[in-house]
């Protein structure tokens, strides 16, 4: 994003070239992404065939969308831990309300969007107006959604999704070469374009500024509470869209959505976006999500025993983030740059 692009200042390496393209501290993720893909292709060349890639992108789309939403919140200096249970809640809501009736699909989707916006508003306003650190606000929201939904459905999802509802996540345009061009992919592209546009817009710049220095933003006339609240709304809306894709992709299960918040945050940070705000690009955040998904595929292709995968994942995440941190830490700029980004607002 232009807002954070640095001027070339040392002998450019691959990382730097990418960093210059995609924003500070993000070089690592693109390098990692390339490595992971290369490795997958070596292990299993057939993965490079268009149909497989399409299938992969279809799988990856929801997490990438969640990462975009989480990016808005994180770059503004906040956190959204509620997206996982929101995705779960939305899928269950869809099943319960549609209950197999094709006709209800559109109204219910609209209602879901409404609900998403509401959740985002609550997260945002409680955080900005009541000055509750977003970590706690959204942790609370996570509990509330988790409980409320199960309270409503008696513990396990009821009803059923309509065929129409499942299309966006499952279907696509059948065509030669790629076999199927998934709707999910097209929706993702749409969202990406919007997201990039937003970050280049005045709003995007004020969002960045708010995450960087709330007080200075305020003095410059930024309505901090509004900017941040909108970020939370964006996050919840993205979670809703992700829910529509996930529900469409795999239907209703009791566990849907669980733990997605951590995966999404990890993805964003992997993308070189700094927790605490004011740094990083939305493209890189998505790349982070894509890298994670690719990593899971690689594990599978290597038929790594599924029990040790978390361990490997942990090591890779730490290593990547540490490396990115080192990149950013040059120059050691102890005065101006806090070496430890914060999960909460400076209130």
């Amino acid at each position, binding site marked *: 994003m*232009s*807002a*954070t*692009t*640095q*001027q070339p*200042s*040392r002998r450019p390496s691959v990382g730097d070239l990418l960093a210059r393209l995609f924003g500070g501290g993000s070089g690592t993720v693109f390098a990692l992404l390339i490595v992971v893909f290369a490795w997958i292709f070596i292990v299993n060349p057939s993965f490079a065939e268009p149909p497989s890639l399409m299938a992969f992108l279809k799988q990856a789309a929801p997490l990438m969308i969640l990462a975009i939403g989480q990016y808005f919140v994180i770059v503004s200096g906040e956190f959204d831990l509620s997206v996982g249970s929101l995705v779960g809640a939305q899928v269950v809501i869809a099943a319960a309300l549609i209950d197999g009736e094709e006709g209800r699909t559109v109204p219910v989707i609209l209602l879901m969007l409404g609900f998403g916006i509401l959740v985002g508003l609550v997260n945002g306003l409680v955080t900005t107006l009541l000055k509750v650190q977003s970590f706690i606000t959204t942790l609370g929201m996570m509990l509330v959604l988790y409980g409320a939904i199960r309270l409503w459905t008696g513990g396990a999802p009821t009803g059923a999704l309509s065929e129409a509802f499942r299309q966006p996540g499952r279907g696509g345009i059948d065509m030669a070469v790629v076999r199927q061009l998934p709707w999910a992919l097209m929706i993702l592209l749409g969202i990406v374009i919007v997201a990039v546009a937003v970050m280049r*817009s*005045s*709003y995007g*710049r*004020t969002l*960045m*500024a708010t995450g*960087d*220095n709330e*007080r*200075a*933003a*305020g*003095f*410059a*006339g*930024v*309505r901090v509470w509004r900017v941040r609240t909108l970020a939370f709304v964006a996050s919840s809306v993205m979670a809703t869209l992700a829910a529509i894709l996930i529900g469409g992709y795999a239907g209703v299960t009791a566990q849907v959505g669980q733990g997605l918040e951590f995966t999404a945050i990890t993805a964003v940070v992997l993308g070189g976006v700094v927790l605490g705000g*004011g*740094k990083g690009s939305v493209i890189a955040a998505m790349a982070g999500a894509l890298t994670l998904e690719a990593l899971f595929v690689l594990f599978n292709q290597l038929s790594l025993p599924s029990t040790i995968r978390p361990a490997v994942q942990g090591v890779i995440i730490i290593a990547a983030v540490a490396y990115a941190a080192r990149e950013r830490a*040059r*120059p*050691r*700029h*102890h*005065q*101006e*740059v806090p070496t430890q980004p914060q999960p909460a607002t400076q209130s």
Partner: protein
Amino acid sequence: MSSDVVSPATTLLRMSGIEKSFLGVQVLHGVDLDLRAGEVHALIGENGAGKSTLMKILAGVYQADGGTVELDGQSVRFEHPLQAQQAGVSTVFQEFNLLPERTVAENVFLGREPRRNRLVDAGRMNADTQALLTDLGLTWLRPETRVRSLSVAGQQIVEIVKALSYDARIISMDEPTAALADEEVELLYRLIATLKQRGVAILYVSHRLKEIFDLSDRVTILKDGALVDTVATADITSDELVRKMVGRPISSFFPDKVPGTEPGDVRLEIRQGGNEQVDGIDLTVRGGEIVALAGLQGSGRTEIAHALFGVDRFTRGEVLLDGRPVTLRSPRQAVRSGLALVTEDRKGEGLVLNQSVAANARLVLDAVLPRRAAQGARRIPGILNSLELVSRGSSQEVRFLSGGNQQKVVLAKWLATEPKVIVLDEPTRGIDVGAKERVYTLMRELSAQGVAILMISSELPEVIGMADRVVVLRDGRIAGQLTGGPGDIGEETVMALATGHDAATNGEQS
């Protein structure tokens, strides 16, 4: 404090050939500096000359890429500030360096809390701090006070106290007076005098030439990270000093009005404005007029600016712009109605440090006038040029700019909104003579264009040199007003009003 007096001649510290680069950009080119016991050694140079960097190398914050540091002839290398402190070097940093949530005592003894059998002895810590404060005549400061509740000035004093408490042989002070008004500056003068007595060597950075000549025995001039010269202060005039520092002579410090600048209609008027911190504020500023708001620390000047700009509120009285009453509840509304506020705390309130010059310069437009942002932004390069901004391109992050250049970015940000009324709070705090001159010229140009300027400043020369009228604040109220324009107002008169000494002040009361 140590009482053993060292004979003035002995050289305590010798830094030679110090090199330092950041981001592959060299900011110190083989600088030499030596400190003698009992001397005040001034270090001057433009913003970005490398003064703070040199100090931070001495303090163990940064490590030099090249060159040597010798203490008492022993070569030393400080990898961590702790080592510097243990070697008897203490520092008052340019940046705010206290913990707001902790007490004065906890801050002063941070890192060296006194202990009795391995446990921190809070009682003794407070006692020692109290002793120190009394010793320095700072009876109004209490060890148990939370730093957060101190004013900017109070906090700066605590930082100085902290540096003194190390009982160090070398104390470097990086613009210790930037946030201080003359009263506190005098206090500092007294402190420095006693320290000299005790043979402490003092490295002193300031942009205020007056202090350089008042205090220092020798002065070292840096330019663009290179050593220009080290001379005995007695052997040099301020003009020579400025020339060495800036590389060109600076004609008259305060530029004259642009011919034909005439006070126009009243643009800004505050009637009986008041709130928790200020009261009974009557103030008018006309287009093309420069009004200065003078007063001691905490007298309420910034508060007026904040209340005016909608950061705080006036709970009483009214504000009129171009004769029309307005209620400004937020900076946004203020900007919309043609106000601009250059805040006193550049890093905390003025800039988003991790963002580019461009992003900072267009921030207000983006925030308040998104529709006009794109086209407004086109003016920015022009503005930055006219301010002679020195940067590595508009995509450079502002945190890498020096103080003066950062201030120029802040100014550009506000000029881009083409304000009718501009409030400048400590506009030249911590910026070098060159930049200062640029700011003054800019102010003149603006008022020539009919902009109404309200300038808050703690530097009396600047108040007197620039203002058409001076409004003096005391304890949150207007103590009086002095008219007569640049040059005609005496510093004493202002101080008298500000402090309330000599009630029979001769300030005209129109």
